[in-house]
C-alpha cells in the first residue's frame, strides 16, 4: 500500500474542479482509486451473470459483446420495478443542497462525488432514452449515450458511495443516492462487474452461513475460546448454546464480532450479558451472519443471504430474534427483511422481554429486536447491576452508524445505554451525529485496504469531528454499534485522531456489568487493567 499523505497534505492536495464540463471528464483508474474486481470462480459459484476475469486499470474490461443492450434492458427493468428510480431520475432540480453533505465529496473534491452528479451519471443515460428532448438535443441538455467510458465511470463512482443516505436527509425531495447507487451496482453486475471484497464474503455467506467463511466447527471453537476469555476476566464461564431447539430467542450478530478485534470484545460482551441474564437463547452456526454483503450487490442477493434468519428461527422453534450490533444488517432487517422473507414463520411471536415484560410493539411484524433496545429496556427497569466506574479510563463519544441512524432511527437507545455504563460521555459536533451523522467512509463493501487513502478522505468528516472532541474533552474511545465501523474506524482514528480506540456498545456494558458469582474484576474485556485498582477499597467509608 502506498504511503498515506499527512492529514494536512490530504486536505491541501484535493484538486480544484476541472475546467471541462462533467460530461467531458473521465475517471482515471490508477491503483488506490478502485477496489479489486471479483474473481471469476466466485461469480460462477454465485451464478452471477457473465463471470469473467478483468482488470479495472486495463482499457478493455472484457464486457460481453451485447453489453449495451444488456444494460439498457436492465435499466428499463429496474425502472419498471422501482418507482423511486423513475422519480429520482425525473425530479431532481439540481439545487446543490446535497453537494457538501457527502463525505466522499468533502474528502476528494471530485465534483462527481457530489450526490447530484453521482445520480446525474445515470440520469444522463435516462434522458437519452426516456425524454423526448434528450433524444433530440443530446449533450446540450446533459443527455448521452451508453459507451464503454460511461460504464467505467458508473463503476468508479458507484463504489465511491457508501449508501449512507446523508444526502437524502438534506434533499428537499428525499432523493436517495443509496437507492441509485444500489441500482447502478445491480446494473453493473448484469455485465459481470463486481468487487472482490464484496463478492467473496457473499459467496462465503451463501455456503458457510457467514461472510468470513467460518465453518461450523471453527465457529464453535472460536466462540468457546472467547467464552474461556470471559471466564478468565469475570470468573464465570458463560454458556455457549449452539443450534439448540426450543429456546425462546435466536441471537444473530455480524460474524465480524466473532472474528475480528475489536469486535470480539463486543461478542464477549454479548456472552457475558446473556449469561448474567440466564437468557433462554441459542446461537446458530447456520445463521451465523447478521451482516449482509448481498445488500451491496443486489436486492435479490440481499434477500438470499437474509433468508437464513427466519429459516433458522423456524427450524429451532424460536419465538423471536435478538440482533447484535451491526449497521447495514439493521438497514436490511428494519426496512427489507420482512418484505423479502416475511411473513415470519408461525412459531414466532411479537418479542417480549422475559425480564421486564416490555412488549416490543415496534417489532411486531419483523419480530426482531436490536440489542441496544433490549439493553436500554433492561437498564430502565433496573435489571442490570452496573458499575460504570470500571469504564472510568474511557472518555467516550458515540458514533451513529449511518444505517441505524438514517435507515432505522436508532439514536437514543444506544445513548441511554452508554450513559449508564460510562461516566464520561461527550457528543461530537451536532452536524456530525444523530440523523446527520457521517459514516465511517468505508461501508457498503468499501472497507478494503487497497483504497486506504480514499477511505481516509471519505472518513475526513468523521475523523475531524472525532479529533475535535479528542482535543477538546480528551475523548479516547469512540463507541458504535456497527461491525463494519469496528473494522474501519480504528485505521480512521489512527489517521485522524491517533490515540482514540473503537468499541462496540455491549463491550462497555459487559465491562460495567456486575455479574452474579464474579471474582474481583481486575481487567476489562481487553485484558487491560481496570481503573481505580490501586485505590483503597472504600469499605463503606464513603457513606453512600
Amino acid at each position, binding site marked *: 500500500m502506498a504511503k498515506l499523505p499527512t*492529514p*494536512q497534505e490530504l*486536505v*491541501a492536495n484535493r484538486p480544484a474542479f476541472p475546467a471541462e464540463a462533467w460530461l467531458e471528464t473521465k475517471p482515471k483508474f490508477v491503483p488506490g482509486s478502485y477496489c479489486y474486481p471479483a474473481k471469476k470462480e466466485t461469480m460462477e459459484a454465485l451464478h452471477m451473470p457473465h463471470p469473467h476475469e478483468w482488470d479495472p486499470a486495463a482499457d478493455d474490461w472484457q464486457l460481453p459483446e451485447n453489453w449495451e443492450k444488456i444494460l439498457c434492458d436492465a435499466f428499463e427493468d429496474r*425502472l419498471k*420495478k422501482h*418507482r*423511486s*428510480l423513475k*422519480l429520482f431520475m*425525473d*425530479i*431532481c*432540480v*439540481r439545487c*446543490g*443542497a446535497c453537494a457538501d453533505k457527502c463525505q466522499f465529496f*468533502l474528502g476528494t473534491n471530485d*465534483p462527481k462525488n457530489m450526490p447530484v452528479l453521482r445520480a*446525474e451519471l445515470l440520469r444522463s443515460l435516462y434522458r437519452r432514452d426516456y425524454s*423526448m*428532448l434528450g433524444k433530440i438535443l443530446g449533450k446540450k*441538455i446533459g443527455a448521452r449515450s451508453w459507451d464503454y467510458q460511461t460504464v467505467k465511470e458508473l463503476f468508479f463512482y458507484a463504489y465511491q458511495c457508501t449508501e449512507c443516505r446523508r444526502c437524502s*436527509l438534506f*434533499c*428537499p*425531495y*428525499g432523493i436517495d443516492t443509496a437507492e441509485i447507487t444500489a441500482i447502478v451496482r445491480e446494473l453493473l453486475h448484469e455485465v459481470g462487474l463486481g468487487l472482490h471484497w464484496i463478492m467473496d464474503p457473499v459467496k462465503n455467506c*451463501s455456503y458457510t452461513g457467514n461472510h468470513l467463511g467460518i465453518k*461450523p*466447527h471453527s465457529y464453535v471453537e472460536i466462540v468457546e475460546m472467547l467464552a474461556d476469555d470471559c471466564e478468565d476476566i469475570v470468573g464465570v464461564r458463560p454458556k455457549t448454546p449452539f*443450534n439448540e*431447539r426450543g429456546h425462546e430467542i435466536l441471537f444473530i450478530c455480524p460474524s465480524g464480532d466473532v472474528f475480528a478485534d475489536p469486535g470480539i470484545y463486543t461478542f464477549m460482551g454479548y456472552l457475558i450479558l446473556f449469561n448474567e441474564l440466564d437468557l433462554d437463547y441459542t446461537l446458530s*452456526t*447456520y445463521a451465523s451472519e447478521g451482516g449482509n454483503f448481498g445488500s451491496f450487490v443486489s436486492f435479490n442477493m440481499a434477500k*438470499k*443471504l437474509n*433468508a437464513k434468519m427466519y*429459516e433458522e428461527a423456524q427450524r429451532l422453534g424460536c419465538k423471536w430474534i435478538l440482533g447484535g450490533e451491526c449497521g447495514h444488517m439493521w438497514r436490511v432487517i*428494519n*426496512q427489507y427483511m420482512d418484505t423479502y422473507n416475511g411473513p415470519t414463520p408461525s412459531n414466532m411471536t411479537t418479542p417480549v422481554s422475559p425480564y421486564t415484560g*416490555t412488549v416490543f*410493539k415496534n417489532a*411486531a*411484524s419483523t419480530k426482531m429486536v436490536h440489542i441496544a433496545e433490549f439493553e*436500554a429496556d433492561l437498564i*430502565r427497569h433496573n435489571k442490570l447491576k452496573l458499575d460504570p466506574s470500571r469504564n472510568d479510563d474511557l472518555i467516550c463519544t458515540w458514533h451513529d452508524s449511518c444505517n441505524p441512524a*438514517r*435507515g432505522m432511527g436508532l439514536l*437514543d*437507545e444506544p445513548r*441511554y445505554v452508554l450513559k449508564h455504563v460510562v461516566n464520561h460521555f461527550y457528543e461530537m459536533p451536532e*452536524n*456530525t451525529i444523530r*440523523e446527520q451523522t457521517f459514516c465511517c467512509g468505508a461501508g457498503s463493501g468499501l472497507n478494503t485496504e487497497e483504497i486506504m487513502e480514499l477511505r481516509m478522505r471519505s472518513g475526513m*468528516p468523521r475523523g*475531524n469531528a472525532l479529533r*475535535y472532541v479528542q*482535543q*477538546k474533552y480528551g475523548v479516547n474511545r469512540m463507541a458504535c454499534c456497527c461491525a463494519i465501523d469496528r473494522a474501519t474506524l480504528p485505521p480512521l482514528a489512527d489517521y485522524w485522531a491517533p490515540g482514540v480506540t473503537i468499541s462496540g456498545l455491549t463491550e462497555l456494558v459487559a465491562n460495567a456489568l456486575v455479574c452474579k458469582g464474579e471474582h474481583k474484576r481486575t481487567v476489562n474485556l481487553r485484558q487491560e487493567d481496570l481503573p481505580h485498582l490501586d485505590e483503597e477499597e472504600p469499605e463503606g467509608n464513603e457513606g453512600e
Partner: protein
Amino acid sequence: MLNSLLVVALVAIIAWLGAAIGLGSLFGVVLPYVAIVVFLGGVVWRMVWWAKSPVPFAIPTTGGQEKSLDFIKQAQWDCPDTTLGVVKRMFLEVFLFRSLFRNVNAEIKQDDPVNGGPRLIYYSSKWLWVFALLFHYCFFIVFFRHFRFFVDPVPGCVSFMEMIDGFLQIGAPRFYLTGGLLLVAVLFLIGRRLVNPRVRYISLTQDYFPLFLILGIVVSGIAMRYFLKTDITQVKAFVMGLVHFNPISADGIDPIFFVHVCLVSTLLIYFPFSKLTHMAGIFFSPTRNLPCNTRRVRHVNPWNPPKDFLTYPEYEDLYREAMAGANLPLDKPLEAETKQKSGE
C-alpha cells in the same frame, strides 16, 4: 445558460411580433388552450408513469429517533410511524421545505486551533431555504391574484389577497409586494447558479431555462401593470372570453400581453416534461411519504421473487461430519447417514 436565455428571448420576440402583425388570436387563444391541455394531460401522464412502477420496499429516511421504547422520545415530525404522522411530515416538507431547512455549509479550515490541523466547520446556511420559500409562495400568490381575470365577479378571497399584497400602498396602480419579491427571488436563484462554483458546475440548460422563463413572465407582467399600463378592462374581457370558451377579438390589446401569455403557455407546456414535475413528484417520494414503522407493519413487494438460498438441510449435508465432530446437534444424525450409505 446563454442558450436558455436566447430561447426565452426568442419566444418573447416571436410573441411580440406575432401580436404586432395581428396573430393575437394565435398567441392569445390557441396557444393558451393548447398549453392548458398539455399541462394537465402531461402532469397526469407523468404521475401515471410513476405510479405504474410499484414501491417494492419501504425506505423512509429516518430523520430522527424512531418510535421504540416508552421512555425514548420519538422524533414525531421527522420519523413518523403513523399515517397522520406522515401527513404532518409531508406538510412540513411541502409547505415549509423541512429538509432544505437543515442545510448547512461545510467548510474546511486548514489549521484549526482546537484540532491542531484541518477541521470541517459547518455553518448554518438558510439562504437557499429562504429564497426557495419566497419564490414558491410569491409565485403562488401572484398566480392566485390572477384569478381576478378568470372569475367574474372577483371572489372576495382574491380581493382580500390583493389588499394584503398591496398593503404598502405605493404607486398607482398599487405595487404588489409579491411581484417584486418574486423578481428578487428569481434573480437570486439565477445568481446563485452563476456565482456558486459547485452549483454552476452542476447546472444544465434545463436548470436555467425555467428560471429565465419565469423571469420573462415576471418582467412582462410587471411591465404590463406598472409601466405600459395595459388596459385591464380590455384584458379581463378577453380572458373571460377564453374562460367561457367564447374567445373575443384580440384587437387593440398591447402586444406585451401576448408576450406574457406566450411565456406562461411555454412554461405550462414545458412543465410536464421537465424537472418542474417535482411539484407533483414530492408527493410520491418513498423516502418521505412512508411511515417509519417497517418492523411493525410488513410492506409487500409485488414482484418479490421466490426464495432461493442454502437451506438448513443442505447446509447440514455440507458440514455434517464437522458438525458432529464439534458436538453440534444434527437434524439427521451422522450414524443414520452412514448406515443409509452402507445399506445401499
